[in-house]
């Protein structure tokens, strides 16, 4: 019985912790910032990616080296 109680309270604690994590403004803020940074990066990729990727890749043929 005591063991079951313990189990239940542990589960509750975990839920509470998870709740804290998802509602913690700092964590949300950090997550938002990461998402924005990733979005910026993905925009940057579109800017630097070679034009005519299909053609570029088709023409990229190397002699085996070594």
């Amino acid at each position: 019985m005591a063991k079951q109680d313990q189990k239940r309270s542990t589960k509750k604690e975990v839920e509470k912790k998870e709740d804290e994590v998802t509602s913690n403004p700092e964590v949300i803020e950090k997550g938002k910032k990461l998402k924005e940074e990733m979005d910026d990066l993905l925009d940057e990729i579109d800017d630097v990616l070679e034009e005519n990727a299909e053609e570029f890749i088709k023409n990229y043929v190397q002699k085996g080296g070594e």
Partner: protein
Amino acid sequence: MNGIVGSETEFGISVRGEGRPDAVSNAVFLVNSYPYLLPASPLWDYENENPLLDARGFEADGERERPRSDYNRLLNKLLINGGRFYVDGAHPEYSTPECTNPLELVLYEKAGERILELAVDFANRRKQGDARFSIYKNNTDHKGNSYGYHENYLVDRSVPFEQLASQLIPFFVTRQIYAGAGKVGSDTKSGSTHYQISQRADFFEVLIDLNTMAKRPIINTRDEPHADGTRYRRFHVIVGDANMSEVTTYLKVGTLMLVLEMIEKGCLVKGVDLDEPIRSMREISRDLTLKEKYRLQRGVEWSAVEIQRSYLEAAERCFAESADAMTQDILRRWRRVLNQLEEEPAQLGREIDWVIKKGLIESYIERKGCGWKDSRIAMMDLQYHDVNREKGLYAALERGNHLDRLIEEDAIQHAQEFPPEGTRAYFRGTCLRNFSKDVYAASWATVLFHGSNGVIKKVPLMDPRRGSKALVSPILEKAKTVDELLSLLAI
């Protein structure tokens, strides 16, 4: 750590627009575009080179490379950091100078990337027409052609070659899980996949041999020590990927330096021999969850992480009493990385190339709603490795602070101009800096000077540990001329 290590990187080269007429001319044009070439253009000394000698005790058939002087100068650029920038076949190639530890190797590899970046910049400026060069530090054109990344480790000659080979095959088959550079698609007809861990795994067909260009072996037997061959072996590793991530290169080289030192000390790993190493290497490259198990010769099935962990644990035991700070750092990282790979590889998205690249591509796919076969994804795979930091995706991640770093940009700048201090590279690089016009030729094991009366005088450097700053700086500081230097060296 008590080793000597260096790496050779062959870079992929693309020229758009009018370009030069053929692949070799493009590579020659690029190498000769590097703005800090030595004006006197010393030769590369091929005399001690023989890549046809086999560690199993015979010499293979084939022609030894001996270009005429003018062509030699066109192909070979000696660097004041002690390294070499040259044309190998149809590729520009950079060899680091000899380094004493994995962090120093990372530094000199990055210096090499910057040298290539400058060469590209100047090639694009002095080009004819609208040609534009791009250079990639990767290993495949995704059409079945691979170009190499080779590591070289100084090993005590008393270790039997067969022991090195048998100890290292399971290590090489599995180390890709933290050393792979990541690849979209496959280079083999069978075994197609959307993404795999290693660039090179598809290209290895045999266990042990001398070849590097066809039927590539996991263990290469080239016996060309570039040093006193009665004491040393240069263990030539052709099975690895070229990496962009500093942490990945550090781990790739650091773990192998420890394993080689273990073998020298007689701390051996037993019971991890794989039933089918070649097949397992390709399968491991395709198992992005790292949960698959592979059959060992003793009948049990182990995962790649478990095989690596047996090397790690042997290293922890072997260095328990004698680990210096860098050895401890490598052991700690190695253990953590293996644990994280087993739990959830995505945790390593700041450190390990194949995980970094996979995360970036997946984010892009999610944003665009495209598939893995989209040509933009193939382009991202290639452009991750672009050495031009305005175009390179690894560089973009680095700028955005999405990656862990080990070295400062200032140190990379310094490493383009100054050699490592703990090896013969110090003597070679400093002579090229101080006596540039008087150096007739150099190689890994020699520096040849124009002596008085038109006589060429050779300074042999048969021990990679000698020629260090501690040993030769009193002489180099005292000598004002080459004749003084030679007389102080008693040559």
